[in-house]
């Protein structure tokens, strides 16, 4: 498993950056990019494990993650645009019409 350890560590680091970014940043668009970082870290993990194991399953999973992530991106951007049309430069903190 030695060859892929570097990739796995990289994936873990990218995933953590995404997760921390999502919690720290307040701009919905940036939060959204952080989610993409996390998903790509997952893809990297899948690919390097798949290569290690000599199994196509890892590569196959990436296809599904990729496509579903695209669908998520489209829906997310649509929601963000709906918000920005009403209130330009909104941040997640400005969204406080509700009590939570």
């Amino acid at each position: 498993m030695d060859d892929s350890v570097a990739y796995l560590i990289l994936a873990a680091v990218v995933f953590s950056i995404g997760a921390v970014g999502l919690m720290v940043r307040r701009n919905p668009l940036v939060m959204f990019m952080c989610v993409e970082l996390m998903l790509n870290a997952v893809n990297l993990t899948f690919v390097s494990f798949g290569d290690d194991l000599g199994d196509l399953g890892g590569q196959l999973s990436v296809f599904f993650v990729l496509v579903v992530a695209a669908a998520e991106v489209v829906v997310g951007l649509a929601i963000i645009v709906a918000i920005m049309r009403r209130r330009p430069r909104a941040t997640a903190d400005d969204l406080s019409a509700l009590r939570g």
Partner: protein
Amino acid sequence: MLDLLAQLPQATFDRPPIDWHALAPELVLLGFGVLVTLVDIVFLERGRAMVSALAGVGLLATVVPLLTLWNEVDTASPRVLFDGAYVVDRYSLVMKIVFVLVGYVVILLSTNYIAEGDYWESEYYGLLLSSIMGMVVMASARDLISIFVALELLSIPAYLLAAWRKRDPRGNEAGIKYYLMGVFASAVMLYGMSLLYGVTGSTLLTDIAVAVADAPQFDAAIALGIVFVVVGFAFKISAVPFHHWAPDTYEGAPTPVAGFLAVASKAAGFVALMNLVFVAFPDRHDVYQPLIWVMAVLSMTVGNLLALRQTNMVRLLAYSGVAQTGFMLAPLTVAGDPGVSDLALSTTVNYLAIYAAMNLGAFAVVIALARKTGSAEIDDLKGAFQYAPGLTVAMTVFLFSLAGIPPIGGWFAKFNVFRSLAGAETTWAYILAVIVAVNSVIALYYYASVARKMWADEAPDGNLAPVHVPPSLVAALAITVAVTLVFGFFPGTVGDFTDVSLLASP
């Protein structure tokens, strides 16, 4: 000259056998989903009137193949498709029927609500159908990839439904909160899945079960994988500490959608969790049991305490839903005990079915009363008995059922929780049983206080005009009241129905 390409393995392709009967429910749903979209494309505005009926018929039509399958499939002989990635057994059929019926009731709730708003209708029902299809697929998914695809198929339409009132800032907020939380959760879950795949070399749950059982006791990658996957679904079922989105999203989303998220989406999360816990890592209860134990205790305690101080009925239902998640998680903490694992599974399935009926019913009453009062504040429900006695009685049934008062449905569900916890005979299970009991008493307080306000207080402004309840809402209320009462008065029949097992699965 294509020698290099020729060296690649050219395995011959065999057409996979497809069990059409086992896939019939999904195909019927897909067909009606396509039909709803086609009607919208062809007729545009003129098609509006037929879409909700079409979607309702589609869901009822899905019940037919589910029932014929029920006769053919028994616990000993599940139908296995796609090398074990998709399994149709009694457990998955029960959950599919629950999802489809919940979907039908949600359509009944939505018919007037959506038609009277100025938002699009055809899209609403199309998205609802595809979300329900994701749930139906989830019930059978026994592979990490199919679980993931099913999860997204049910979540992505739900994000749009939550943000349905797009010109209302509260609707926007509901959508973006649910969306960001949801994608974060699925990213965490995916990372867990990639770790599990890396350690076990397979995405098939049954293969994973074999691999993790053989693994050394303290394998960090396996533990991390299991924790991440469970945490990912904890968002979906709104378990504390991953519940923050629930009250805001329920309040900002259209109320029928809030009911849908509170019931169907939560049940789908539980189904995925049960597939994983019972099929993929039954032998690693050392990892998941403590995690689920802590989430169960936190969910019921925090959910109940926060519910005590709510002034809005939808938010109260959201926090009570968080507490109910805790009750439903409780049996899973003893899932690893071979003596009670079957009982734990059927207890959770049972609770999910009863919870679906009583919670949707409560949302139905809120929707009906909001037609008069225009709000979901608890104080506006005061004196409802004076002008809407039928709705008040129905609400009382639902609230007492949620509180677990015999002999209504919720009581039977809670009784089973105690039975499976006591059956495990461990100290931790006994402690949990005591915590469940204490929390049931706290919950009774706020459920009863809503009921008291509806029965005993004076209506605000002395406005006693009757509420006009459209026929579709009456139907929804009749279904939910009937199911809630039947579950309580005839627990035997229901017990047989939900007596399911995942242990016999291949």
